[in-house]
């Protein structure tokens, strides 16, 4: 990311301080006594406003109409995500967690309730979000660099202004030498890294990730998780991360929202108070495994 991106980010953080946000907000549906400072020890958040709400979901409902019946994909979800927070939505397949994420991204209409980003109701895709999907969905006819720059074209910005940013992102994710290769020449993990660069190129404040590493092998996945934390630490984005892996959720998150199917509700919110920066060794600690056990119990109901 170029110098310009950094300046802009600081201005946004500054506004967060001045901005008079309401002192009260809807809490998570249950289990949660308050949104609290969600950041683990050892993580320096600078002067960022720690408890300004970035994403606010209230009484969200999503109903799919099939020919015979109505299927309630999301029953009644409340959620508040603070600026710069890393939040995972954990649940089994088909529990509606991806639906929830796509709704936050403005990619699916909602049936009831509300989603607000920076206190602004989500009515469609926004310019300040970046989405990473389960598959990299790179355009095979574009080089890596041009894939990363696609959002710039799509948003009607000047591509020339973002070339350096794309190069820096690729360099940061270890893809510096691949700018002019085609996606088919890259491994699955590398392709997904390209997708992350693409989601960051326009400097969004909110990153939405829909099981981005679920198609990767376990070793690549561990590496990608560490890399994601490094990127998050560097760019200070708010991340909403959907996963069905308990360990992944614990490793990455400040807070984990457990989502259960039928009814599709948030059944538990667990604050992960583990020191940052985190490395893979943390997975061996008793604290880590206590969280894993707690979440497994929550999922099994």
């Amino acid at each position, binding site marked *: 990311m170029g110098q310009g991106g950094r300046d802009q980010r600081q201005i946004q953080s500054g506004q967060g301080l001045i901005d008079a946000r309401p002192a009260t907000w809807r809490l998570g549906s249950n289990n949660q006594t308050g949104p609290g400072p969600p950041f683990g020890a050892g993580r320096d958040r600078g002067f960022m406003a720690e408890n300004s709400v970035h994403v606010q979901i209230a009484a969200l409902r999503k109903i799919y109409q099939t020919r015979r019946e109505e299927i309630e994909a999301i029953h009644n979800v409340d959620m508040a995500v603070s600026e710069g927070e890393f939040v995972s939505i954990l649940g089994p397949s088909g529990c509606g967690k991806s639906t929830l994420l*796509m709704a936050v*991204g*403005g*990619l699916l209409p909602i049936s009831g309730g509300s989603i607000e980003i920076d206190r602004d109701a989500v009515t*469609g*895709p*926004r*310019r300040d*979000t*970046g*989405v990473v*999907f*389960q*598959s*990299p*969905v*790179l*355009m*095979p*006819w*574009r080089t890596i660099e041009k894939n990363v720059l*696609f*959002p710039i*074209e*799509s*948003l009607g910005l000047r591509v020339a202004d973002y070339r350096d940013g794309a190069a820096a992102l690729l360099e940061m994710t270890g893809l510096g030498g691949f700018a002019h290769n*085609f*996606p*088919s*020449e890259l491994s699955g993990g590398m*392709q997904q890294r390209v997708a992350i660069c693409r989601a960051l190129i*326009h400097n969004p404040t909110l990153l*939405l990730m829909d099981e981005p590493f679920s198609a990767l092998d376990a070793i690549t996945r561990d590496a990608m998780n560490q890399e994601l934390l490094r990127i998050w630490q560097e760019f200070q984005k708010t991340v909403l991360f959907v996963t069905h892996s308990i360990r992944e959720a614990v490793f990455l998150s400040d807070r984990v929202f457990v989502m259960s199917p039928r009814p599709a509700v948030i059944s538990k919110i667990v604050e992960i108070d583990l020191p940052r920066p985190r490395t893979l060794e943390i997975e061996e600690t008793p604290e880590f495994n206590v969280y894993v056990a707690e979440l497994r119990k929550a999922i099994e109901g």
Partner: protein
Amino acid sequence: MARADENSIPAQIATQAVNLAPATVISIAILVLWQVIVVVLKIPEAILPTPTRIFGVMVERRELLLQHTWPTALQCIYGFLLAVAVGVGLGIAIAFSRLFRTGVYPLVIAFQVVPKVALAPLFIVWFGLGTTSRILLAFVIAFFPMVVNTFAGIQSTDPVMIRMARSFSASRWTIFSKIEFPTALPYIFSGLKIGITFAVIGIIVAEFVTAQEGLGYLIVFSEGNVDTPMLMAAIFVLSVVGVILYALIVLLEKLVIRWDVGQKL
């Protein structure tokens, strides 16, 4: 897709040349065998001339052959280009408009059942014996694969890729021009390759019927004169025209589609 040097056009042509070597050897063997059989069995020239005789005619009467080659080749190209414009346009319209999909597409498919060659006499009634009739016949034969392939290509777009584009606020035009159209391109090129061979058929049939000019005309004219060497020379030249037109499309395809088409990302 590999490094540029392996992928450059001269390198590809070199690879093609190596690939074509066995076919070339077999072709020469067949020609030799043909020559031997005709000479040994003393087959009359009016039934089957020798390859050397046919090539002799091609050299001796090259001016007459060329004079009839140009109109055929040009009309193939005109008919083909018309089919590309209308076929690809209609394919896009069918992909995006419910009205076209429900109202026009079934008619296009129903029309495909009609043997187009049977329309040649009708076209003469309507448009006369001139080039218009011939180009239109090439067009009606060639346009169907373009419509179907363009439509199928656009439909094959990965819905997740469209969702990805929408997540970055892509307009409908951006989604079409930057995602759906490139996705459809390999399909469209398949349509072009089928279409160009169909266009040649259309022109030749039209030339049979209109009997004004062109290689098709030369073929029926030579047949009337029992000039079989000329007839076969005209067929050979016609084949060369067909191969060149096809090769031009393949070349264009190689220039345009430089990515690995089989890969889904």
